[in-house]
């Protein structure tokens, strides 16, 4: 796997909102805190996180082969830090998913496989 962002960092990424609930933000991803705070601040309430976890759970149930954090991380772009460039690469990959028909219907939503991956990660590590 050529994923340069560490597994621990990605777990931090997808679980940051959960951490934020208790005000226990303690990212060790230097330089990314501000952007991540901004990115996830809309998910500061549990009731706003649960629907995403539900999407992730439903995706995993329909795609058992995608289970496991490592498998899900392999589906994400490589990167060194969780900076703007990394988010841009995520955005690009999502757009390419849509353009190439790499989409899945989950809970009646038509979502890109990358979005489903992220929701599944949130379900696995952020619960």
């Amino acid at each position, binding site marked *: 796997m050529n994923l340069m962002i560490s597994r621990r960092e990605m777990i931090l990424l997808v679980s940051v909102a959960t951490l934020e609930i208790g005000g226990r933000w303690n990212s060790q991803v230097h330089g990314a805190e501000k952007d991540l705070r901004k*990115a996830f601040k809309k998910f500061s309430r549990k009731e706003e996180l649960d*629907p995403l976890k539900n999407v992730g759970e439903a995706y995993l149930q329909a795609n058992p082969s995608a289970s496991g954090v490592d498998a899900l991380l392999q589906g994400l772009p490589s990167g060194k830090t969780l900076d703007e460039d990394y*988010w841009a690469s995520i955005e690009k990959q*999502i*757009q390419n998913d849509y353009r190439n028909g790499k989409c899945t219907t989950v*809970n009646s939503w038509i979502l*890109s496989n990358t*979005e489903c991956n*992220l929701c599944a990660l949130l379900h696995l590590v952020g619960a």
Partner: protein
Amino acid sequence: MIIDAYEVPNGKTVDAEICIIGGGIIGIAIARELRSRGLGVTILESGGKEMEQDSQSLYKGDGRIFETGSNKRELPDYLHQSRLRLLGGSVHGWGGKCGIPDAEVFEKRDWIPNSGWPFSRQELMPFFDRACDTLKIPRFDYDANEIFDKDRPTFIFGPEKRLTTSPRHISPVTRRGPKEMIEAYRGSVADDPNADVYLHANVVDIVTNETGNAITQVEVATLKQGRFTVRAKRFILATGGIENVRLLLNSSKKHKNGLGNDHGLVGRYFSGHTTFANSSALYLTNRHQPLTLYQNKDARKIWGVFKTSRQTQIDHKLPNFTVSLNSGSPRPNSKDAAVMQSSFLMDGRMANPSLEKYSPRGSFAQAYFMTELAPNPESRISLDEQTDALGQQRVRMDWKFSKDDLDGLARSAKVFGQEMGASGMGRMKAVFRRDRLLMTTGPSRHHIGTTRMDENPKSGVVDTDCKVHGLENLYIAGSSVFPSGGIINPTLTIVALGMKLADHLVDIGKGA
């Protein structure tokens, strides 16, 4: 000139040049055209100038829709609520939407059984122009995807161009327009001293000559026991896609299976347009491209719907499919809002400080989908055993959807959802529960295909001049002659075909 059939002496015979049965929007359009070119016209309209319940109740019948071998939904009121029986007809209930069918609707597509017309859209374009003039809307002589009204720009999709924009205009000759518009439209014939418009005149029999190959007269009855006869050189049946069938099948004295029904086709291939809306929603995140062209339905301006492109239909073997946005913007529930925001988040925009100008919450839009239904011989209008106040057999509607119709809807919607993501427009949620689909669909008032056009009498009821096969002087006007219904509101096409028919009648009139 209006003549009330209640005042016509019993047993009288009226002689006419061209007799039009039905004084709806198409009967009037053809009459105007023929009158302007010097031909004599007599219209027989069942209703009055205003709605009358005893006339309207003649429409009653038995109706249902169902998916072959599966769910069924009874529509007990559909047949008498989806049409209006008075001078001007359903124009009094029409929304005024006008558009031109896609070129591919006129072509034979191997993935849509029984699709295609006997001529191309291009051949019909001059008549569409005249129909636009008749309905007082701008002509469709532009490419909607190149229009850039700065206040209402066309949405630019990704390089794959899986979706495009299809333009619509709203005719003012409707209940939406000024009342005087409808009055002027029907008055253009009713006030013409050289056109006779009979009200309360119900045709109960179309009578042929001894050899059965030409119409000699029609028998007319009123709801007050009056009866008289109208003789003419030519007859045009223009009573709508269901009543056209009923009259042909009830006229069975000479032709036991009904007129034009030697091959059992009259009433078959019934189709309409249906909308699917209740369980679908769009979540719009894109702020680059306003959607005013699609959401703000200003009746005075062009407005747009999204459609799958021709190439997408070919690549994925899809039917015609459109998505219309409603102007309302109710709030989504909290669960949907959260997923919508996550989509936004995952587009990277929240993380990018330079994009703070974007609304973090996006917006919500209601949408409704329309999908083309394949012409299906098992979907049909037939006669019922019940009779109406004039002794005419009522109709039974068995509107059948095929599995492919509903699969095509779901597959088209998925393509639309993917393109929303690819273009950055947003995300789509669509619930397609097969066991609920027919319960939530909205059947349109468009009645299509029951006297379909084909050059071969074994495959169609009328020829390319809209003349009934095997009968020298009986023509049919209206959407019942459409071989493929496509997805566009049919009125403009109905009027365009009426212009074509009028030209034909003028041409053969010159030779007569």
